[in-house]
């Protein structure tokens, strides 16, 4: 049984259909990347998984349990966590409070403040600053840490590299092995294909709300990816 099994996930914004039946799986311990251009439906897919977007109950299964369409606060309690696009830190909370609120659901697991400060030492130095006073890269670390504090079985990351300098992106992605080492599986959505190819065990490409390509990075050719990504 796969850790995450998405089958025929659809999403609508009013009359506009954003997803046309996405099939995707993530195995325990895997890092899976979803690539695709702007508007391909990557973020909508993550929102459907976590419960911010309406989804059919059986279309999303976590460890066999049907969780599609459950409210987000329940899904988080069951072991999914999302690092949202744009980070969305709480402005009236300090760095440490932002991290602590991640543990609100109270799931047991390996992640706690000490473990996170070991992963991102700069956050311990800045722990009493308002979350939004940090640099973009540091804010992204807080957003990742906040999601990890809920001790998810699967961490969903939406566009970690958005708006960050390449050297910062490298630092952020350098934390991924440490996250996997604790047994947390990861599903990343990326526009940066090179970055996605480097970190992923498997890759999915979305185009206009459908899966246009799936496979292991080393088995896919440039031409295949280019065709699946741009449709030309």
């Amino acid at each position, binding site marked *: 049984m796969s850790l995450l099994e998405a089958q025929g996930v659809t999403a609508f914004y009013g009359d506009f259909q954003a997803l046309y039946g996405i099939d995707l799986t993530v195995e325990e311990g895997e890092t899976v990347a979803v690539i695709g251009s702007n508007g391909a439906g990557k973020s909508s897919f993550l929102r459907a998984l976590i*419960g911010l977007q309406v989804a059919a109950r059986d279309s999303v299964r976590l460890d066999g349990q049907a969780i599609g369409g459950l409210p987000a*606060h329940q899904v988080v309690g069951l072991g999914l966590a*999302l690092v*949202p696009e744009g980070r969305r830190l*709480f402005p*009236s909370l300090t760095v440490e*409070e932002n991290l602590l*609120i*991640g543990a609100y*659901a109270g799931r047991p697991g390996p992640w706690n403040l000490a473990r996170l400060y070991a992963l991102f030492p700069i956050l311990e130095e800045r722990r009493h600053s308002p979350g939004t006073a940090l640099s973009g890269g540091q804010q992204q670390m807080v957003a990742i840490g906040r999601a990890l504090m809920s001790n998810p079985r699967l961490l969903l990351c939406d566009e970690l590299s958005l708006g960050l300098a390449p050297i910062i992106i490298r630092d952020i992605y350098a934390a991924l092995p440490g996250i996997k080492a604790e047994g947390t599986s990861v599903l990343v959505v990326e526009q940066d294909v090179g970055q996605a190819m480097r970190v992923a065990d498997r890759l999915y490409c979305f185009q206009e709300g459908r899966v246009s390509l799936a496979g292991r990075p080393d088995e896919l050719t440039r031409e295949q990816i280019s065709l699946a990504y741009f449709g030309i």
Partner: protein
Amino acid sequence: MAEWINTLLQGVLLGGLYSLFATGLALSFGVMRMINIAHGDFAILAAFAAIAVVEPLGLSPWMTLLVIVPLMGGFGYVLQRLVLNRTLGHDILPPLLVTFGLSIMIQNLLLVSFSADTRSLNVGELGTASVLLGGDVAVGVLPLIIMAVAVGVLVGLQWLFSATSLGRAFRAASDDREAAQLMGINNRHIYGVAMALAMAIVAIAGIFLAIRANISPADGPARLLYAFEAVIIGGLGSLWGTLAGGVILGVAQSIGLKADPGWGILAGHLAFLAVLVVRPNGLFARTRDR
């Protein structure tokens, strides 16, 4: 001279009662971004509930707090979950209209049940007892108790907001509802708890009001107005600002009353307008604009 000091002290202590009225309003605005037009009526409702139980249960007016405050808290939670949560969204009008409707319903319900006569809770000698501070300066014991409770409520809320998991959830849900859900926070429950707290605090205010003065079923809107003024003078979103706002309002009213018995209320409104002119965001507003 002593007369003026007395006037000032009375005004400051009256601010304690206004602060109690304002705190619940500030809380529901701070957490849910919701303006509760029925806030004053809930206070009067709690006061009449206390008047209704004081004789049949053979309680002292103080003991009614132990009964009515938890009851009103529970009522607040249920009301938020069943009614008010459904009005929350991008549009600020639905909660205004629904709580306005509640305000009318409560006033009429009280009118039918208790008639338009004024009523109060009698605490005997304590109601008029005072402490001599020296010279001719004296303060009432009851206003002192009310001020102490107001400060105690604010200290408790300050602790709740800054040091507890529930307080962090309040602030997170206020900052960003959707991101709060991603933390496993059930916003509907959190809003229910916030309304329970607001309702419990305004119940204390209502019962104190009935101990201090006569009340009638139509008194709610005037109480709401003072609470609004205290919140806005203090600055939206600032807890301690409500105490400062209440005290400024109380002092202005006392001074106005001293000048002429008809000027008390007017002086309060004038002080409110003066603060609006000088500091449109209030004295202690959080600088973050949303």
